[in-house]
């Protein structure tokens, strides 16, 4: 049952592949989710612009590191050498759930939405590794996990800054602390 569902998912992902443009759209969606908290915290346009450039750089770095780790794992476990652009071509469609990352801006359920999206991306990578490189699911999971964890940690660090800034911003809005 599960392999059948994953097989159908692989076919769907391969049909839905729209190339590198997808990575750009996913990045924009992720930045949009971040943009809400930056605007909410009354950052100046310049601060927001700097933050969005930083978002773009770190997200690109997360993607590149994820691919690099996958290449290294493929080399270590199968001996095959895959070019980065070739791997991105093969696995790019795995990012499709990331198009919905802008909904992480929604309050309260944001963590749940983010968790589901990251889980789906990881599942897609494993499925595509199985479908494109003809690897068993277990091996595909072992290959995909280190790169996924590194990318996830980078994104978490990047988006973690937003709420700390909100407290600092608010503190400056309020009256000076008085002894109570």
């Amino acid at each position: 049952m599960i392999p059948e569902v994953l097989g159908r998912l692989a076919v769907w992902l391969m049909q839905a592949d729209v190339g590198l443009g997808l990575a750009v759209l996913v990045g924009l969606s992720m930045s949009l989710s971040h943009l809400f908290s930056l605007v909410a915290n009354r950052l100046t346009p310049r601060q927001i612009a700097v933050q969005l450039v930083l978002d773009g750089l770190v997200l690109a770095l997360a993607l590149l590191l994820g691919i690099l780790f996958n290449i290294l794992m493929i080399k270590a476990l199968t001996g095959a050498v895959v070019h980065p652009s070739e791997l991105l071509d093969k696995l790019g469609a795995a990012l499709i759930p990331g198009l919905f990352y802008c909904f992480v801006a929604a309050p309260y359920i944001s963590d749940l939405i983010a968790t589901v999206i990251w889980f789906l991306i990881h599942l897609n990578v494993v499925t595509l590794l199985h479908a494109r490189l003809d690897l068993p699911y277990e091996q595909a999971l072992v290959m995909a996990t280190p790169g996924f964890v590194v990318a996830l940690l980078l994104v978490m660090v990047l988006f973690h800054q937003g709420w700390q800034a909100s407290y600092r911003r608010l503190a400056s809005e309020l009256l000076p602390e008085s002894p109570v």
Partner: protein
Amino acid sequence: MAPLLAVRSHLGWLRRLHQLLLWLVLLTGLITLLVFRRADPGLLATLSGRNLTTMLQTLLVLVLLLIPISGVYSVISQFAFWNGWLGGLTPPAELFGDDPDESSSPCFLIYLDGIHQSERDHPPRVAAFLEALEQRLPVDVKLIKGLETYTLTPSRLADDTGSQWFWRRLFSLQEHHPNTLVSVVCSFLVQANNVIKVGISSDRRYGPILNYELALKVAKKLAEQGFCPPSDDTRGPVELVLLGYSGGGEMAMGMADYLRRLCRCPVRIITCCGVFSGNQLLEQVGAITMVVGSRDPVAAFGRIAYPGRSPLLPLSNWNRAVARGQVQRLNITGLNHNGSNGPFADRYREAVIQAIVSQLSSHEPVSTT
């Protein structure tokens, strides 16, 4: 005349901007839906509503899109207020008058209603409870009621800029539609809106802002009631006590620290069947008393829904407050969240009032079960 026209024109422009933001959010949802459909032509067929399964799938997709879109819209309203587009964001220094009102009470008990609140007036059962509570309060305690806990401005939900057309139709349907199901659905939508506000309050990104805005609203209400921040030479001790029922407990926790800073006096919290995250800054807040029922599934759900209250995270704000001995729990056996066994019902009203009054009468939390 000319300045008046200029203000009207400015307000009209702001209203249009606010509505534009609403449409932008809806458009974003529509675009993502289209992208989703375009990605796989097969999905187009599943959205056609041919059979029950397809209809359920469609409904699920719509709900999954609607929930975050509603949340984002709520946040946008909050931004509009925060940026001063809706007015009412008073600078803290201008909140209170210079001359203290000598007849003002030394203690204010501020009631924050649960998520059922849609109007300034409380439902009859809650109003009766508050009336009974007011009669039992110590003479130096003044009860502040009728606060719209889930709107930022002092206006009703039906006057909310940008969505008033929706809420007015909804309230009209809720009150006048002959079909009970329609009334129930409308009531559910009002509660869903308030649940989203509770969610925003507990969200680490937007919570501080909403909580600050609410604290500002409460401070303005206190100023209207003659409250003035205590100074060294003129006044005795002044204290604020936030009493939050259900989701009002979250709002109380959220705004307590900001209210303490704005009003420059100690703030205590009493929650009644409270559902709250405990994510907020609680270190400088006074005692927190939880009046809980032994048969309250909603309050119990709060402990599961909010990981910060789990004992597995000992460094969370809530668990650190518990470790400091700041939190007191008062159990009332048999009390449910609402209905005939709820805190506003005749059966448990006295016990709940007794628990609240006993806390107000003492400077330190009193433990009773």
